[in-house]
């Protein structure tokens, strides 16, 4: 009891210190919403797994999981239980501590992303005024976990997968950030809440090229097909998590879907107008839009073959990067011309620019060089 008293007293004494320092209630608020957020993310992930498996099943003229619970809704739960009961196997040659730590490091940042995503006006854990920078910074930390996993497994497939992941993330971070900068220019703020408030015209229309670049780069970052080279099951078995089993594998599995949900949420927030929409309550709009974006990811995964590693790199550097730069330049000019808010004219101009640019780049740039002479 004495310890608790001490803690509370310390908090109280702290609260007295700076004027803008969070007050006494702040910590409980913080803790409560963090737990709510984690629960929310886990539920969203379950929904995502269910949607992915069912939709993919139907697209492949199968049924997908339909045995556990009504319509197979409990399948993610069954999966989770199964995976937790599995034996935890650590390879002999593995670097034990790193091997153990990797899933944790990969998992934590994904949850942290959700801290700045607004579910409705003002309903976000931390309204950081540098929200987007925070997302960009945090989201690439997962890569460290993935690389640790690949390195510590002592497996060549894992190492290859991890190397591919690092290469992809390092390359795709640039077009990703550049396409966000366009949005930031238009919105005039880095806070996600403000960005949503500014979207009287959804930014997908104002920044169509930016959206495409961001979508492609996001797919590559969170290794969704067609850029799922890090765990290319037909080539390197399962990439970085080849040697993982049991709960640790479950963590990676969770990371994969949580990242996909996080990226969908970010795309929803900065391109699709976040919680805004008629009739339905804002948080529902947000969830619906997130799942729509996620469904598009599932859809592309179902249809498309995987690209090769050199093509992946080339796509980032020769295709997305220059286009993102041009997009940024065009946006900057438009913001100069219309300082208050971009009008509908800008939508038409931007779509026209997008079509022209994609046409030109498709014509003139060959991606990938193919064979290496030995």
């Amino acid at each position, binding site marked *: 009891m004495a310890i608790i008293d001490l803690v509370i007293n310390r908090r109280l004494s702290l609260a007295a210190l700076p004027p803008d320092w969070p007050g006494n209630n702040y910590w409980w608020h913080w803790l409560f919403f963090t737990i709510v957020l984690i629960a929310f993310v886990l539920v969203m992930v379950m929904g995502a797994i269910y949607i992915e498996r069912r939709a*993919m099943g139907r*697209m*492949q*003229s*199968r049924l997908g999981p339909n045995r556990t619970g009504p319509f197979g809704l409990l399948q993610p739960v069954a999966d989770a239980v199964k995976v937790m009961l599995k034996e935890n196997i650590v390879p002999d040659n593995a670097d034990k501590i790193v091997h153990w730590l990797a899933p944790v490091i990969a998992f934590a940042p994904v949850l942290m992303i959700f801290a700045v995503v607004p579910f409705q006006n003002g309903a976000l854990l931390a309204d950081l005024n540098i929200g987007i920078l925070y997302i960009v910074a945090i989201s690439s930390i997962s890569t460290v976990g993935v690389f640790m996993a690949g390195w510590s497994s002592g497996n*060549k*497939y894992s190492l*290859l997968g991890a*190397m*591919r992941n690092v290469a992809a993330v390092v390359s795709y971070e640039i077009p990703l950030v550049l396409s966000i900068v366009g949005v930031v220019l238009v919105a005039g703020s880095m806070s996600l809440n403000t960005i949503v408030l500014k979207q009287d015209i959804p930014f997908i229309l104002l920044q169509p090229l930016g959206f495409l670049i961001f979508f492609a780069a996001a797919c590559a970052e969170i290794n969704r*097909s*067609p850029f*799922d*080279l890090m765990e*290319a*099951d*037909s*080539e*390197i*078995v399962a990439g970085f998590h080849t040697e993982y089993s049991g709960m640790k594998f479950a963590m990676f599995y969770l990371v994969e879907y949580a990242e996909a949900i996080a990226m969908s949420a970010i795309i929803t927030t900065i391109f699709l107008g976040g919680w805004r929409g008629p009739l339905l309550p804002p948080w529902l709009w947000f969830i619906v839009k997130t799942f729509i974006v996620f469904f598009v990811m599932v859809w592309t*995964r*179902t*249809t*498309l*073959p*995987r*690209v*090769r*590693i*050199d*093509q992946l790199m080339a796509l980032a550097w020769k295709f997305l990067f220059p286009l993102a730069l041009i997009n940024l330049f065009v946006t900057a000019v438009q913001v100069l011309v219309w300082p208050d808010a971009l009008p509908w004219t800008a939508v038409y101009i931007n779509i026209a620019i997008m079509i022209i640019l994609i046409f030109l780049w498709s014509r003139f740039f060959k*991606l*990938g060089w*193919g*064979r*290496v*002479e*030995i």
Partner: protein
Amino acid sequence: MTTTQEMTLNTEPFVVNIGPVHPSTHGVFRMRCKLDGEVVIDIEPVFGYLHRGIEKLAEERTYTGFIPLTDRLDYISPMSNNLGYCLAVEKLAGIKVPERAEYIRVIMAELQRLANHCVAVGSMLNDAGAYFTPFMYTFRERERIIDLFDMVCGQRLTYNYMRIGGVSQDIPAEFLPALEKVVKRLTKFLKEYERLLKQNEILLARAKGVGILSKELAINCGISGPVARASGIKWDLRKADPYSIYDRFEFDIPTGENGDCYDRYRVRIEEMTQSLRIIEQASKQIPGGPIKADLPHIIYPPAGEVYAHIEAPKGELGFYIVSDNSIAPYRCHVRPTSLINLAALRQMVKGWKIADLILIFGSIDITMGEVDR
């Protein structure tokens, strides 16, 4: 002064075993790959994980008794294996096959080609990374073909349908109407499948110009079937050395130009169309009559040797049989299409990435049952 040798980072190639247990080695194939990062420097195929000694087993079985074992050679296309073996024994013993049986055999062999190419194309695209969708679609269509095989011979994988001098049983009355439906359905399906992936940019980027097998190398390695035809060799045993009654049907031999993975994929799809053409013609012309030559169950072919080959879905499948006028073959050698088609794999993959290695390997379309025997 530092030399460039010291300046550059010293790297050394590392060896990765792909297989025998790997999602896309089509069974238990193993490649010992030497990699420089992602680039394949050298590979060495290792076989023998599925070696069952079928050639030795043939020497201990009657001529008819070996037919069920031929199913297990190339288990994706057992009908073709049956046909090849039966043709060899018939050639050896000089047996005349009744007309109706010949037509049934042709229909079965062509259906088998369709089924095999369904598997080949589907799993190749799966190797390319299309997450099971093309695979599922083709397997769905293969299922319809297997239904027909099931109807005539009662099994779905090891058909054991052909017999020396004919086929084991007559086709049931509901077979031909069902065949017509399947042909119609497959024609429709092929159109849809073309839409799915023919012009897909990613597939083009992955498969076009990748794993080029030159015409000269293909001939030198003895490569046959769709792989050879994709390299521009217009060589199809159904035209070049018409066995059974293939000289009565009209069909084309599709060939590729570059001999890359994409051409191999295209050639297979085109061949499926041609097979449908043959089936349509055969099902119209099929006469009545007996389905099996009048033969005892155990035959004693005259002493001698024979080589009969057919255009199996994967290439030239041949049986070299030496007889000593006893109930069992003295020696029965199978010309293993898949094994010989792998001969050029090393040259084809050198310098490509691992992803390409898997795709090139998938585009050759082998079955381990036939490689190891």
